[in-house]
């Protein structure tokens, strides 16, 4: 837990210029100008601060996993209500925005708008590594590397996810910060480890008043040796072990009548190729889907577009796209029937939406992320990325850490 700035001998975090951000209610200014009242200002300040400190209402900017821990913090084990913190659904009635979760470039403008809708005085808590820095998504095209690039953050609560207790500690630290607000000071940096005792839940852990020390030993033991069961095929130092046997092809698990169908009706020469599912001609593909649907393969499972960039050198290969499809039969002994299409760059695949309505969003996703067109799709828009996004991120030539000003 670190509060922005302060503390000597530590590397300073970038601090927002607080003087520009302070807000005073107009009545406060009027009050100060009343002669005589200003004498009592210190105690009035104390009362005003006390009010804010003890009533930090939270606006949950909960986007993902950390949001679940935010909910858990409001639930019975930690209970934020103890310190008077309740969760308000509207930004107009909250003081603290808790950004819990990954903020993507599509979401960031909304977060900013919501932040601007909150009335002063307001604070922000970045909960979890995603909100602090982007976590391991930091260098990916879609993720904002830390919410403090968008709005001023007061308290950082690290963790992935931080425990509910940690969030409560964060709020208590914020309380300290609020207390010093009018004095224009920042609370001292929290260095003493014993300070953390504040957050230890006083409730006894579940069924665990006295934990058997043997458990810990065993845990350590098993963690050390968990993967030691079989060292026989461990490669000797320096030796690169060849890859395992060629994988089991999917087609082999398909019923023989499916193979026959593919061979006889759809002219597939190789019904169980080594590198994946059988390849079907682009024109016959919708007919095949229709046929499979009639045979009881009723659930659309997936369509995956893969980009194979142009290869030069020893085994040159042109740039191409591959679409893998699978459908699943319903009920006992459920099976997957899969096939593939090979496409040249720019070639469109016939859409399956007419056969399986479930293909709708998956095809949109593949168009959005890989850039394969689906002819006859009723609504081929981007689905994951913003409408005006440039390029198709899952192509191999697309840089993973592409910039997206102003958000990343």
């Amino acid at each position: 837990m670190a509060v922005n700035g302060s503390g000597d001998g530590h590397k300073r975090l970038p601090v927002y210029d607080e003087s520009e951000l302070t807000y005073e209610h107009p009545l406060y200014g009027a009050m100060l100008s009343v002669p005589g009242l200003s004498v009592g200002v210190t105690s009035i300040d104390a009362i005003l601060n006390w009010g804010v400190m003890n009533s930090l209402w939270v606006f949950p900017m909960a986007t993902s996993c950390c949001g679940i821990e935010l909910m858990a913090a409001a639930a019975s084990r930690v209970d934020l209500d103890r310190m008077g913190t309740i969760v308000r659904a509207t930004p107009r009635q909250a003081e603290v925005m808790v950004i819990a979760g990954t903020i993507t470039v599509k979401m960031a403008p909304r977060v900013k708008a919501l932040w601007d809708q909150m009335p002063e005085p307001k604070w922000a808590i970045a909960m979890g590594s995603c909100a602090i820095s982007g976590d391991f998504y930091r260098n990916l095209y879609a993720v904002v590397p830390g919410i403090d690039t968008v709005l001023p953050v007061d308290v950082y609560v690290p963790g992935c996810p931080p425990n509910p207790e940690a969030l409560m500690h964060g709020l208590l630290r914020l309380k300290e910060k609020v207390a010093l607000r009018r004095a224009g000071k920042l609370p001292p940096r929290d260095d003493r480890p014993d300070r953390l005792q504040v957050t230890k839940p006083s409730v006894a852990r579940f069924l665990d008043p006295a934990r058997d020390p043997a458990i810990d030993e065993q845990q350590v033991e098993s963690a050390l040796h968990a993967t030691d069961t079989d060292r026989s095929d461990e490669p000797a130092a320096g030796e690169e072990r060849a890859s395992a046997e060629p994988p089991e092809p999917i087609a082999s698990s398909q019923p023989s009548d499916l193979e026959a169908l593919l061979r006889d009706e759809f002219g597939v020469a190789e019904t169980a190729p080594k590198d994946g599912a059988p390849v079907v001609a682009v024109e016959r593909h919708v007919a095949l889907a229709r046929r499979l649907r009639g045979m009881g393969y009723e659930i659309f499972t997936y369509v995956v577009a893969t980009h194979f960039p142009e290869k030069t050198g020893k085994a040159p290969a042109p740039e191409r796209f591959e679409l893998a499809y699978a459908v699943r039969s319903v009920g006992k002994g459920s099976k997957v029937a899969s096939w593939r299409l090979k496409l040249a760059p720019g070639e469109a695949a016939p859409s399956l939406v007419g056969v399986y309505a479930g293909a709708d969003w998956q095809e949109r996703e593949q168009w959005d992320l890989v850039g394969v067109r689906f002819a006859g799709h009723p609504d081929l828009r981007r689905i994951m990325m913003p409408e005006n996004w440039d390029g198709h991120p899952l192509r191999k030539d697309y840089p993973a850490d592409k910039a997206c000003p102003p958000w990343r």
Partner: protein
Amino acid sequence: MNATSAIIHGAVYGTIICVVILTGIAVAIWFERKFAGRMQSRLGPTMTGPVGLLQPFADVVKLLQKEDIVPRDADRGLFDLAPPLAAIASLGAAAVVPWSPKIIAADLDVGVVFVLAIGGLMVVPTFMAGWASNNKFALIGAMRAVAQSVSYGVPLVLATMVPVVLAGSLSVSGIVGWQAQHHWFALWPIIPGLPAFLLYYLAMLAESNRIPFDIPEAESELVAGITTEYTGAKFTLFYMAEYVHTMVGSAVASALFFGGWDGPFRPGLHWMVLKTLLIFASVYWVRWSLVRFRSDQLMALCWKRLTPIGLGLVFVAAAFVQFWPGGAR
């Protein structure tokens, strides 16, 4: 009592009652949060003051110093007017509630009508707020509130008519006094006191927007309903108005159906406060254990069930007064 002394009496007691109710509301909010906490196996506020007692005061101190935001496209005049109006409308009805034979701000001859009229007024600021906010969630909330208040006004009136008919008086203290001499209406065997109280209770929940009838606010659907755009002090007024409305509703219920200040051993004030608080607490008991209705179900419940029942009750009460040997009076 001449006019001047009536005015002085009203002003003194009115102020005292307002102050007491508002303080009471603060305690009630604390009580609700603790109560909800216990229902949910939590603790509720503990850190602010002893056992969290100062929590509502901290909330108010905080809310009053928040920035006051008026959305650009809001209807400024209405937006500003709605919260004080809500507070006034909800507090106004407290005027005719007899807290003891003496403590009553204005002992009107038509007290019951006054309570119903002022309570019914709550819908105006609610709709004003929803409309003026220029927010779609607030607007939907306001439309729901209007539909709900107007509909549930009918069973509410019918339910209050039962004690009026039985006691033959439109004055709240008159009804209480009548009950002191006979029985509390709620203790009347099945017909018609107790059903009338239950009907009143349901309609009161609806009128004061409490779960399971809290669709105008419905924070899981409409974010915060009519108060979505309100900040700081204005929101505080709405927040208080809601509690005052429930509190006054409970007080009226205990006066009309539970014999108000009537009771053995203790002074009337104690009994009145005790009864009011019990009814008030039961509202929160209901609130924290049920989910809410949908708006069309609410309407159906009101017009198809409660209103016919209410009419039937009034009819039975009238017949009772008319045909009971010697009359109920």
